[in-house]
């Protein structure tokens, strides 16, 4: 059996697919692409014109180049980690279920079947990176008085190379379950590194391909990046090595890995079509469990009936400790930002958002309950009461994390001793407000299909639906924050803040308690 037979089979498959394509499908796609490009051009040109009107001063230009050196490597590293994690359950080469049964099971050279898709995957990676770089170029060129040619080349080629690298490494992850497990276990290290890179911009440019890709752009933008030719050469070498390795190992993927991705792909396509983020999250969770298994944690059941649900939620949290880790990381960001720079209003908003997201990580059991609402008939609580019981454990956990962080901030000298008592008293209340807000948002379940059928206003309705939880949290905690800021001595606002928080917790609880299971 030859590569020729593989090519013939693939060509036949393509021909027949085209022949059965519904009339108008291609023109619909082209029209959609045209509209998207048009919007991008209009928005891009408008933003560019606005920025271009005021060119940055030399000092501002230097700051912009430094900002690029600080943030560029971190952004590219996060993108690379995201691409590698994506490759643990999908990746640059994904077959359909029928491809696995009919083509991959045939005695055709696997490399001949994989390479056309791998070429597309590599192209897509490079294109996505290039588009990111193009956006950065437009932003920089609008602000800086530097020659466009070198800046365009550096800004586009660097991220495009990282995109290519991500796709090539993605295939190497895809073809080895051992590497996929390693990526899942170690990617948090990559994210921690990305979080640390902005603190050391000079080192960040040499820290890896994500930094090597940014060095030439920093130099072209007039910033300080003396070794950029070496960085460009290192990046080219790394990309060439990864692409060569991926291409030569095109035939190496086990059927089991390709079949696993194919099975997920069908569900993913349907969920993406309906903007069903929850279904996508469940598919990803299922894929992760297939690779890493489920932690067999045991916890002695409680005697008290009302503790049954907190016990079940604690068990779920211990079996997926990543949720707790994310919640702790987000809460750390929130508490440290507010403690370090209490006067910044923007940081306060960001801290509430981070706190809401941390609470969202902890209320997974409510989402699970909403996924299968009929399951609650097995239990002895009314649905609304069950929702409230599911909030107990996350509220306690978030309050504990928050309290520990407050003490840590005080020990680090970020929080004055006078504010310690107030912060410790406010943390459990804020945690309760955030967890209840996350529960109110989470219990709605999946995006209602009706929203997608609203025509022109569907996009706004969908956005509002998604932002309900964050807006609720910002509003409910924004009031006490404003009260504390409005008074010269925060102590005078404490009674009002305490009453507000108590009323909010009661109102949120009452709202949750009256909810019925989704139909």
């Amino acid at each position, binding site marked *: *059996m030859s590569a020729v037979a593989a090519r013939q089979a693939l060509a*036949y498959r393509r021909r027949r697919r085209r022949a*059965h394509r519904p009339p108008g499908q291609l023109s619909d796609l082209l029209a959609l692409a045209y509209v998207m490009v048009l919007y991008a051009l209009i928005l891009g040109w408008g933003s560019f014109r606005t920025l271009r009107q005021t060119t940055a001063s030399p000092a501002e230009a230097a700051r912009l180049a430094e900002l690029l050196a600080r943030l560029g490597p971190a952004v590219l590293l996060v993108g690379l980690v995201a691409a590698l994690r994506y490759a643990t359950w999908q990746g640059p080469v994904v077959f*359909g279920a029928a491809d696995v049964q009919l083509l991959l099971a045939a005695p055709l050279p*696997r490399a001949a079947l994989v390479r056309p898709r791998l070429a597309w995957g590599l192209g897509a990676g490079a294109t996505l990176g290039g588009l990111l770089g193009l956006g950065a170029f437009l932003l920089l060129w609008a602000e800086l008085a530097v020659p466009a040619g070198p800046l365009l080349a550096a800004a586009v080629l660097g991220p495009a190379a990282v995109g290519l690298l991500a796709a090539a490494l993605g295939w190497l992850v895809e073809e080895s379950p051992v590497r996929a497990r390693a990526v899942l276990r170690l990617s948090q290290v990559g994210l921690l590194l990305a979080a640390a890179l902005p603190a050391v911009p000079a080192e960040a440019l040499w820290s890896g391909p994500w930094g090597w890709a940014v060095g030439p752009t920093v130099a072209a933008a007039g910033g300080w990046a003396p070794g950029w030719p070496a960085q460009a050469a290192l990046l080219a070498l790394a990309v060439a090595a990864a692409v060569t390795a991926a291409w030569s190992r095109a035939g*190496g993927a086990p059927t089991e890995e390709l079949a696993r991705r194919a099975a997920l792909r069908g569900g993913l396509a349907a969920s993406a079509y309906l903007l069903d983020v929850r279904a996508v999250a469940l598919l990803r969770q299922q894929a992760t469990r297939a690779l890493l*298994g489920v932690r067999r944690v045991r916890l002695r059941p409680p005697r008290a009936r009302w503790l049954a649900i907190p016990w079940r939620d604690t068990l779920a949290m211990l079996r997926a400790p990543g949720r707790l880790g994310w919640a702790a990381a987000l809460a750390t960001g929130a508490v440290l930002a507010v403690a370090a720079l209490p006067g910044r209003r923007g940081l306060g908003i960001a801290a509430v958002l981070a706190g809401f997201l941390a609470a969202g990580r902890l209320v997974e059991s409510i989402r699970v309950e909403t996924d299968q609402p009929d399951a609650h008939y097995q239990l002895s609580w009314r649905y609304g009461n069950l929702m409230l019981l599911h909030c107990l454990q996350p509220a306690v956990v978030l309050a504990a994390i928050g309290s520990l962080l407050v003490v840590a901030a005080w020990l680090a000298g970020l929080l004055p001793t006078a504010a310690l008592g107030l912060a410790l008293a406010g943390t459990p209340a804020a945690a309760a407000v955030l967890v209840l807000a996350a529960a109110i948002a989470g219990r709605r379940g999946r995006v209602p299909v009706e929203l997608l059928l609203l025509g022109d206003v569907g996009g706004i309705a969908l956005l509002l639906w998604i932002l309900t939880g964050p807006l609720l949290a910002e509003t409910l905690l924004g009031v006490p924050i404003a009260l504390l800021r409005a008074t010269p001595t925060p102590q005078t606002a404490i009674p009002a803040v305490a009453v507000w928080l108590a009323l909010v917790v009661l109102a949120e609880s009452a709202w949750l308690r009256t909810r019925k299971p989704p139909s």
Partner: protein
Amino acid sequence: MPIPAALRLCGLRKVYGDVVALDGLDLEVAAGECVALIGHNGSGKTTAVRLAAGQLRPTAGTVMVAGITLTGAADVPEARARLAFVPDTPVLYGDLTVGEHLELVALAHELGEQAGQRIAVLLEELGLAGRGEFLPGQLSRGLRQKTQLACALLRPFQVLLLDEPVVGLDPPSQRALHKLLRRAAGGGAAVVLTTHQLGFAEGLADRAVILEEGRVADAGPFERVMAGAQAARLGLS
């Protein structure tokens, strides 16, 4: 020199996390022999045939098809050329007709000129005549299952693996499939199938292997095993 078994499974083990789906299965199937894997839900039948088909990678053990080791290397076209597999759920291209599925299989297996006639015969035998221009979305579950069976039976094989092949098939179609599988075994192919329908396996399978929690509870001639103590204990007789 002894003729290698058409299919040989040695110490086959599959573990998902800390769940042992199959625990040390040894099985040899000679050319022309038909073996039925029987057991409760979750006993390891599907895992066993998927491992044998190369669709899953064993945690331990080896799969050999006509003397060629299938496990270890990802790409073993020589083994795949000798092996046909029918999964428990029909998996078809939504945008290819029944006839086009068979043409694609013919191309992928380089069947050449002989394919057209074989396709027509198979469509007739499986009750798909007149459905060649239908897309899978226009077919019932049973007809999709028959299309999948036709795809597997069209190509040359020395080992035929079927996972619950009669699910969704009406009684005449089950009889037709029975006949086709007997003919395949008569032609020298090793046939391994999993089924909960013991009536279908009766008269077709030479041997039965009862699996229980991933292990072989009993194995031997079909009639002897089904009349045995293990089958009775598991409520399979």
